[in-house]
């Protein structure tokens, strides 16, 4: 019984990581209707950037994220402004092709620069620290921080979206591109800002990816798949839905693994399929279309 309870707790915490993967994707789709096939690779790229900063400057990964966040915001802003905005339009294919190409470029670029070796972010004692919950159950500090960060990111994004004028512009632009321009909204700049924010979320996701497990340049596409599943389970357009989607995915994986370790990945996908059959629009859909 303790084993199952443990699996459930670990699943919820793992869900925090998947929610972090998914939130950036949810933001990009929510504002720009952009399906970013390079999302997983961007997370891996950010993990390597954090790794490089920690090694070059000799700082802790947490400090490295804070240092890297403005740079990643600028990269995201530039990527959207100079490249991705040109692909957006009535045709859905160009952004898919371009982000697919980006994915390949990032993977091979990382292989070239960092080799195919598995790497890890090191943060000293916190990596192995844990909190006892009584009985035989203990939870790691890093997984706890992961979930707490996911919640904090979503609270922050909801604040931006529903309490600030740039958030109002995000929602208006997502609703109606033409009329948004009639309001004096510079759509290209608005999209670029959204992508900059998404890149900061990507950096936070990358931090926990690198702290919790090994990473190498090829693991991006699998992270993309988890992120997609979390977004779809939660329903398009709702950040809290995305968190719920991540947690459901995490739970399904750990509970599946508890039954039989071979079932871990499969049961996650099965949970996704079940939700898709029962609630095709996800659990908490917000988007109108």
């Amino acid at each position, binding site marked *: 019984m303790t084993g199952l309870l443990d699996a459930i707790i670990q699943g919820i915490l793992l869900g925090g990581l998947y929610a972090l993967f998914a939130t950036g994707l949810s933001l990009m789709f929510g504002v720009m209707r952009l399906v970013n096939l390079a999302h997983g690779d961007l997370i891996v790229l950010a993990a390597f950037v954090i790794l490089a900063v920690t090694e070059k400057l000799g700082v802790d990964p947490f400090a490295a994220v804070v240092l890297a966040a403005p740079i990643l915001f600028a990269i995201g802003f530039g990527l959207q402004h100079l490249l991705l905005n040109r692909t957006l339009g009535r045709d859905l294919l160009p952004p898919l092709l371009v982000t697919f190409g980006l994915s390949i470029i990032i993977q091979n670029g990382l292989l070239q620069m960092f080799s195919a070796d598995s790497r890890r972010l090191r943060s000293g004692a916190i990596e192995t620290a844990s909190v006892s919950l009584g009985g035989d159950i203990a939870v790691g500090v890093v997984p706890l921080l992961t979930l707490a960060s996911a919640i904090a990111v979503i609270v922050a994004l909801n604040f931006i979206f529903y309490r600030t004028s740039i958030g109002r512009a995000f*929602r208006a632009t997502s*609703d109606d591109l033409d009329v948004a*321009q009639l*309001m*004096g909204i510079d759509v290209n700049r608005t999209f670029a800002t959204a992508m900059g924010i998404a890149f900061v979320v990507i950096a936070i996701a990358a931090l926990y990816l690198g702290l919790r497990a090994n990473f190498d340049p090829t693991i991006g596409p699998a992270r993309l798949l988890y992120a997609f599943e979390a977004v779809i389970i939660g329903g398009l357009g709702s950040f809290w839905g995305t968190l719920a989607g991540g947690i459901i995915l995490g739970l399904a994986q750990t509970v599946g693994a508890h039954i039989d370790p071979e079932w871990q990945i499969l049961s996650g996908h099965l949970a996704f399929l079940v939700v898709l059959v029962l609630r095709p629009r996800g659990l908490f859909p917000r988007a109108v279309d």
Partner: protein
Amino acid sequence: MPLLSTHNLTAFYGDFQALYGIDLGFDAGETIAIIGANGAGKSTFLKAIAGLIPSRPDSVLLDGQPIGAKRAADIVKLGIALVPEGRRLFPSLTVEENLLIGGHGRKLPGPWTLDRVYGLFPVLKERRASAAPILSGGQQQMAAIGRALMSNPRVLLCDEISLGLAPIVIADIYAALPQIKTEGTSVVLVEQDIVQAMKAADRVYCFQEGRVSLEGRPGELSRDQIHRAYFG
């Protein structure tokens, strides 16, 4: 010099030409109405002025300055606001947020504030926290006009503001026009409802197949003239 004028303005949707050289102009504070059958190019004309359809730089002049090639987001900052056909409020924004976003691009303070828009259309204040789509058609139209006013326009372009509304609601909305005009704002009304348009306008233009087929003051145009200009 007129406040806004168009000179041989043409517009295309791909290969299809919708406007064949429109020459039109009006002064500050003037209200003009554009009437004409479906497909005559009335809405296209408004979209071209607002910058949603590209045109040659010197085919639209504001204060004598060419603005034809500017983007919609820049044109609204110059003082031209469009109330789009079908209202097109932002469905995921509340009424108040819809009004606030109307002032998104404005740099200078002007006569129109949230409070003044609520003064013009008190019902919007009651429904300020409602999501835009649950408003009645008339309330949505008021919100769409208020949203455009929030940019403090010198020129207010209104595309079919009476479309699909009950006559009593239309009367309410048209009753707001004099207040809008007291700020020196010029109003361009595109209307199917000829009677309403003639009552409100200082001058009337009739469009037919992308050309101006008739122009004059409402009192000076005969029923017969309008009929011919409308249907050819």
